[in-house]
């Protein structure tokens, strides 16, 4: 039996700085207060009394990115809105996380074939949790939040597996796309997302 569990049986609880730090971090995620489409309505419902996101310590929706830890990309990201979303993410202090909520934020959803919709916010931002659905119910958002909390709790503070914000060499900002003549420039952040390669097979 592990000594930690043996100690717990005698009423002595031990912890590490890492566990304590991650415990505090994962239970005080402050989301950025912004929504892009109908997923935001479900996000609002999740913050209200019936679903009560406050049970997970994430009820403090901040109107300023300077005070937010978590960006819930709730809804369709149009190409006109994408630079603003990326800029808001860049203005959030570290550590910060991104939840892509709903089919549109993941892939463009039903508007994927449209000319004006970004086909997934993961082309520009490092998304931590994807929540499928159109729109996902509040329970799904809560589940996504719990998954993010699990991810945070498992993060080491030192060593090669440490998160980006603890790495001195990690990027401090992600490039903001600009409006080009025909499309956003650049089309994606190649460090985060690579376009699927078209495999040409010769039938001989």
């Amino acid at each position, binding site marked *: 039996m592990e000594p930690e569990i043996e100690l717990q049986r005698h009423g002595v609880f031990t912890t590490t700085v890492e566990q304590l730090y991650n415990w505090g971090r994962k239970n005080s995620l402050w989301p950025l207060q912004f929504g892009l489409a109908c997923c935001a309505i479900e996000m609002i419902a999740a913050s209200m009394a019936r679903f009560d996101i406050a049970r997970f310590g994430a009820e403090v929706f901040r109107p*300023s990115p300077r005070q937010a830890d978590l960006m819930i990309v709730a809804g369709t990201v149009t190409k006109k809105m994408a630079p603003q979303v990326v*800029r808001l993410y860049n*203005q959030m202090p570290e550590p910060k996380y991104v939840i892509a909520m709903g089919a549109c934020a993941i892939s463009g959803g039903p508007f994927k074939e449209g000319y004006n919709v970004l086909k997934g916010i993961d082309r520009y931002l490092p998304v931590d949790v994807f929540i499928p659905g159109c729109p996902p119910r509040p329970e799904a958002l809560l589940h996504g939040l719990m998954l993010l909390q699990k991810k945070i709790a498992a993060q080491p503070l030192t060593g090669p597996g440490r998160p980006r914000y*603890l*790495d001195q060499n990690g990027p401090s900002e992600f490039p903001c796309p600009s409006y080009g003549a025909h499309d956003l420039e650049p089309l994606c952040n190649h460090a985060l997302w690579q376009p699927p390669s078209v495999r040409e097979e010769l039938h001989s």
Partner: protein
Amino acid sequence: MHSDSWSFLALFALAAVGFALAPLIIAWVWARAYSPRKPGAIKNATYECGLASEGTGWIQFQSDIYLYGIVFLVFDVETIFLMPVAAAFQGLSFGACAAMSVFMLLLVEGLVWLWLKGALGSRTKYCYGTGN
């Protein structure tokens, strides 16, 4: 032990200062040890509404805007004083009525003076310079 009572005071003062400083020092040490600073041009921008910021936060305000603010404040406060007077007007004694009239006359005098100085007219510029 007269001197001991004063040393206790010093001890408590030291403890109070330490109580205030300790969290700040711990936070500073923690930040130095664990979280590298990651500033950036977008993160350090003046404003954070999603659109690109323009200019700096250090802009010049014309002094006229302060003049206008003070005038507004004076008459805002006057309204607060006038409300209870209006509510109890029929039961007021002559002395109270006279005191209130003097108070209002003083303010009206100030208003006339401002009017003559042109502070209420179109001469007042509400110019928020862009600073660059």
